[in-house]
């Protein structure tokens, strides 16, 4: 019965691998949409399957679909369209190496979670390992991309990973906290998008390697 969630958690993890292997900004955004959809599915499935019937999870599922599947990706696409630049290499290492390093992150998160005693009585919970790996891969994605939009997507993936971790480890945070986190994420993306726009105006590029004036 729970293997159903196992499959979903692996799919979410795999979608972050695909994100890592994406080359263009448009495909990042598309992959992010898919990942969020999977998370919404997980939340919805969990809302139905828990004994008490958690209505808040269903609401959250709807919220994810509205915010992370539709609104935020659309906003990112719009930002991207307004700061269009010549397509160029956006990653620091080549893709197979990035992906293999991400594998190492999965192993790392396995070892860090395995230090927890008694998490789900003896067997290490695969879902928590997977969702923590999503966070780590999101962080790694942020440092592997040079364009500002890539970093925003990385941040969103970290946020997704956090949400999935909460979902799998504790069946979601208290509802009011969930709501607050969504509002924060939405505001953060709006602000970051606006800032990307400003940066592209001042620097004629959204390459964050050009942001190197302040040191020491």
């Amino acid at each position: 019965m729970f293997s159903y969630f196992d499959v979903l958690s692996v799919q979410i993890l795999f979608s972050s691998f695909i994100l890592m292997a994406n080359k263009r900004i448009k495909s990042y955004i598309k992959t992010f949409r898919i990942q969020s959809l999977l998370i919404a599915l997980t939340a919805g499935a969990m809302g139905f399957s828990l004994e008490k019937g958690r209505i808040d999870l269903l609401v959250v599922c709807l919220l994810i679909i509205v915010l992370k599947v539709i609104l935020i990706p659309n906003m990112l696409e719009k930002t991207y369209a307004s700061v269009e630049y010549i397509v160029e290499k956006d990653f620091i290492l080549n893709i197979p190496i990035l992906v293999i390093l991400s594998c190492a992150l999965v192993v790392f998160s396995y070892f860090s979670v395995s230090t927890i005693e008694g998490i789900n009585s003896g067997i290490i919970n695969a879902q928590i390992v997977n969702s923590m790996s999503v966070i780590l891969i999101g962080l790694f994605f942020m440092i592997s991309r040079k364009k500002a939009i890539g970093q925003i997507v990385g941040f969103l993936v970290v946020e997704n990973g956090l949400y999935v971790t909460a979902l799998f480890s504790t069946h979601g945070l208290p509802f009011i906290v969930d709501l607050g986190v969504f509002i924060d994420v939405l505001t953060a993306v709006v602000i970051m998008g606006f800032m990307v726009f400003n940066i592209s105006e001042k620097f004629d590029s959204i390459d964050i390697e050009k942001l190197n004036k302040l040191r020491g």
Partner: protein
Amino acid sequence: MQYAAYVLIQLLVIIMLAPLLDGIIRKIKAFSQKRTGIPLLQVYYDLLKLLRKTSVVSEESTWVYKIAPYIVFSTSIAAALLVPVTTKIMPGTLPGDIILLISILGLGRFFTMLAALDTASMFGGMGSSREAMVSILIEPSVLVSLFMVGLISKSTSLPQIMQAMKGIGAPLTYPVFVMIFLAFLIIIIAESSRIPVDDPSTHLELTMVHEAMMLEYSGRHLAIMELGAMIKQLVLITLLVNILIPHDQLIAVTGIGALVVSIFIYVAKVITVTIIIAIAEVCTVKLRFFSIPNLATLSFILLFLGFLQYFILGGSNV
């Protein structure tokens, strides 16, 4: 006697079904481009027509060139006989397993590449060098996926693997098998020269891989070569569906009735997977040749994740 009949049926099913898959894929592609496309059975007619024609052989070529089509065809047939298709009984009298299966397929590929080099044509050399690269890249995934299945069912013999999989119930509800399924789809696409890796429908010298190797062949030789390649594709699909989506009749065979049902289920499964492959082919564009390592990495990562899920995180679940 009954045994021989099973062998014959399996052989017949494989040879009759293989060209149909190509027809289905072409039809779906045609629909996606808003064309009617060629008839479903056109592949059969083409093959029959080619079989009736004599083949032209280059004067510069050696015996390798002439013998290669037959070797390719017979390796494909041998591989087909090693895989239980409709019944548990493995028709081959050899005690073969997945390792033998992979080597037999490798032998066929080796001769294809050799024959392409033999005529000393420019395209042949190019095609075989590309084929070598693709196969080197995809080989680890093939081995790892089959061995993983073997490890889980604690055997390398295909009938036993299938039996163990049936014992699990519905393998595709477990993450590890979902991962293997997806990885194997990528393997099938790469091995049977389908779109992200190679475009089977063009003769564009910059992109072709498999077609480049076939370029010199004509007539009967070409027909046999093509049929061999189609059977190889079907064998891989068969491996996928019979291991990961096993059905009852496959395991416990009893008489003609069960056999007929089994054939129907089998054909339905194969056609479903073929449609998935066709959709994948429609949705993607051909990759740059140097991006193929990325695809291979993808399939390898899938297997890695599956491996992790099963052997480290939750081995006792399955």
